[in-house]
């Protein structure tokens, strides 16, 4: 029995691991609880959850890209944050959340911007009072959780919604599944992506989101106090400008780039990365091919957002 289990387990691992050993396609769907996710969606779009009623989750995580088009996201009372909001799409595949990986799960992540005084600036009590005062919320929370809404319930619902925010069936995923062929440029771009070593960090389902790496390995990247790096957590010198590797999924849509939103275009982002982490400048041809590849990473809009209009 035990041996059989072992064999089965290895078989599973082998199957998961060997399709492409560096990059895996996004599954077409993953199981989630529909009612909770729908409630989470409603909450995700609700600006009343912020201190001054102006900022919703969706304010910085656009329904089109999951990311923020502004270099630095804006919080309540128009306060500017220290980072460009990372995309909320496909976050379920990340090993940690936030730029510095401060939290592991989606549920824990939800609390961070809500409590952050320059983001949404809400406390637990205010959120709960609000959720219980609104009949529609009160009814739904009662129906799903069997008791009046609590803050963990809110996190749970939003996390469930975020689980559903996956963007499957990109050209690249379909290529990985053997459904289509890439164009010569795209294929060349992928080869470059590997040959230049980008893939050493940008691997896995999300092409990133599974390790911490330093920005400016070869040529030092400028550093400023307040950057959301590992240093902000560990205060170790070596952790300065060390971030969770951002995903390259939908990267063509999520400009501006980097934690500080300093690259407005993909060209610029590629050049900067090449300079700081390869120590070399890419030529135009290389950049075009890489961009051609990166564009194949654009997936479908998450089904839960397509279901009924863009906003509830």
């Amino acid at each position, binding site marked *: 029995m*035990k041996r059989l*289990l*072992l064999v089965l*387990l*290895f078989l599973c*691992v082998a199957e*998961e*691991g060997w399709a*492409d*050993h*560096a*990059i*895996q396609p996004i599954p077409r769907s993953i199981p989630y609880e529909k009612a909770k996710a729908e409630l989470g969606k409603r909450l995700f779009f609700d600006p009343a959850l912020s201190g001054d009623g102006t900022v919703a989750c969706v304010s910085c995580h656009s329904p089109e890209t999951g990311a923020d088009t502004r270099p630095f996201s804006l919080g309540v009372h128009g306060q500017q944050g220290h980072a460009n909001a990372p995309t909320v799409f496909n976050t379920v*595949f990340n*090993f940690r959340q936030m730029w510095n990986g401060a939290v592991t799960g989606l549920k824990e992540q939800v609390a961070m911007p809500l409590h952050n005084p320059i983001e949404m600036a809400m406390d637990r009590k205010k959120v709960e009072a609000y959720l219980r005062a609104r009949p529609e919320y009160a009814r739904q929370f009662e129906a799903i959780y069997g008791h009046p809404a609590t803050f963990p319930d809110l996190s749970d619902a939003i996390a469930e919604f975020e689980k559903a925010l996956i963007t499957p069936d990109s050209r690249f995923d379909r290529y990985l599944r053997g459904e289509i062929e890439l164009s010569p440029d795209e294929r060349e771009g992928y080869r470059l992506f*590997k*040959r*230049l*070593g980008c*893939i*050493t*960090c940008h*691997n*896995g*389902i*999300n092409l990133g989101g*599974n*390790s*911490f*790496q*330093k920005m400016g*390995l*070869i*040529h030092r990247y400028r550093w400023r106090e307040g950057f959301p790096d590992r240093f902000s957590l560990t205060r170790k010198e070596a952790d300065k400008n*060390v971030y969770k*590797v951002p995903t390259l999924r939908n990267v063509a849509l999520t400009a501006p780039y980097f934690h500080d939103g300093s690259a407005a275009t993909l060209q610029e982002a590629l050049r900067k990365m090449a300079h700081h*982490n*390869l*120590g*070399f400048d890419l030529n135009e041809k290389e950049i075009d091919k890489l961009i051609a590849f990166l564009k194949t990473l654009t997936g479908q809009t998450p089904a839960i957002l397509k279901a009924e209009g863009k906003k509830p």
Partner: protein
Amino acid sequence: MKRVLSRLLLILLAASTGIGLYLYSDYYLKRYYRENLRIRSELQSLQTDLYALKGDLLRNASFLYYSYDNLHRFVRRIQSRLDRIESNPHFQDEAHSASQKRLESFQKDFRDYTKELERYLSLNSSLKNSIIYLPTLQLRAFSLFDAGTPREKETLLLLSRINASIFLAKNAQDTDFLEDLKSNTLRLSREIQNYEGARKRLLSTFREHLWQFIRNFRPYLQSLDRLIGDRLLQESAEIISVFQKEDQAQFKTVNRISTIILLLYLTSLVVVAYFLLRIDRENRRLRQVQEELERTLITDQLTGLGNRIAYRREKVTMSDPVLILVNIDRFKHINEFYGTRVGDGVLQGVAKILERITPPSLQATLYRMGGDDFGILFERTNCSLQLTTLLHNFHESLEECQVVVEELTIDLSFALGASDRKNWLFETADMALKSAKSSPRKRYALYTPDMDKREEIAQNIQAIRSIRKAIVNESLVPYFQPICQLSNRQITRYEALARIELDEGRHILQPYGFIRAATEAKLSGEITLKILEQTLEMAQRHPFDFSVNITAADVSDKEDRERIIQLLHRYRQLGNRLIFEILESEEIRDYESTAEFIRIAKRYGCRIAIDDFGSGYSNFEKILQLDIDMIKVDGSLIRRIDHDRHSELIVQTILEFAKHAGWETVAEFVHSKSVYDKVSTMGFDYLQGYYIGKPSRTLQTELFQIPRRGDR
């Protein structure tokens, strides 16, 4: 009732305790094994995951680029396993405290391991990035440097040597090559000084990546070593072995508890069984008591035979029943003479006799029907004899038997009545019995329809009504029959006979039509008084002797006796002309009161006659004790005296006896000339009968007025 309830409650309690114990032990054991298995399998899977993680790490190390996702997945899987094991209540049990401690330290080590993994991934990416990029840079160098010039050729060769060393170092995972690389890096630094522009920039970048490799290679290898080491695996193996050891100890406890529970369960079963048995026993006892009671209800306690109820029950189940009733003659006397104790003994003895003499082939059931009546009930088909023959046999057997009670030997005689009339079995058998009893010679009888006394009973009731009416209406009158004195052949005496005149004298009711019923109804005293009074009135007017019938019952009743004496007193001047005829045929039970009356009557000058003397009932000794004046010889002896030598002898003996006793003698039933002639010569003092004269309302004074043959 309360006891039953409490016992029931006890049983329920025991049963529910038993079931509860069983369920608890079942639940407890199941839960124990289930949770135990769960933890064991989690611990085993933990090891499997650790192996898988290690395998994936090695793959990561050997590839230049490889997805990190699986590593994180294994980490998450292991973490959730640890959480599950830790939060399992079974694992939290005190018995597993050593395992808990080990798991705790494992958790801590695993957290460190995760951090190490993150560090490793950063190192890995940087290192591999450089390893990948260095050959790319060398390729670029080929286009930037001129291999024709010795210096530049030397530079290209240096880059090649460096890449070769890196290739070796990386694939051998050997830090020995780092020294080589370091010296080559110094040479490269010197070379850089010789170049400008793009060439210098390329070499600088090359050197930078080289430094990256040199700097990170040793920590990379160390980190990898730590990650693929066996520490966590050993720890998890230890947890498993410690857990199993603890489990064995706990298993013993669980085993002991379940044994105890099993014993308790069995005990409760025994308790339930005990109570059930007790209830069963009690039920059986109750049933016995009930049967006993029922038997008592239908059993005669004295003889052990069935009683009337038993008889009735049995009878209805039979198809062709025959009932023989057996009655002990004069049982009342036995009771009075010897006392009821002996009487009871007699009854018991008779029951035994009946059981003995009843032929087994009859398959008869014996009953004591009440008093001294016994019943023998059987199916007609079981009896091959004629019923009368059977009765005869029974009677013969009974007559031969004697009953011995308390050393007294008692001779008994019996009367038997039998019937096979299913519908009125007892009633008709009783009629047959009565018929047998009423006859002095016939001692058994089988029911025949003419025995049916129901008509007679109805007549008696009618008669009693008539008597009552007659007494009220003064239609009860004396008829006077003349009695002839032989010495002077004159009528000197009349006997007053009671008659009821109906329809103003057109119908006359004879005394035997009503006297029996009257006696039964206690009306005979009344009749005697009425007749006596009217006779005394007649005697007042006519100078003859008058005789009046009086029964022993009349004089034994104190009230009646008083009234008779009052009448005598009123007509005391007539006393010497009055004769009381005491009926001899009747049983004179109370000789005392009879003697007393005779004494009083004699005081008024009355004379006493014994009526129907010689009818077979005479108790000479008793009669001799009474102070009587005359006897009237029974008509049955006189009627045929003219041709019956036997009767003549008896009458001669009576006359002889009377002469010696000093009694006057009267011959009754002188109904013909030949009887008249006969008795006239025998020495009688007086003659009476239809030949002398019939009874009439008025006094007949002449002899032989209506001489004719006929009845009295």
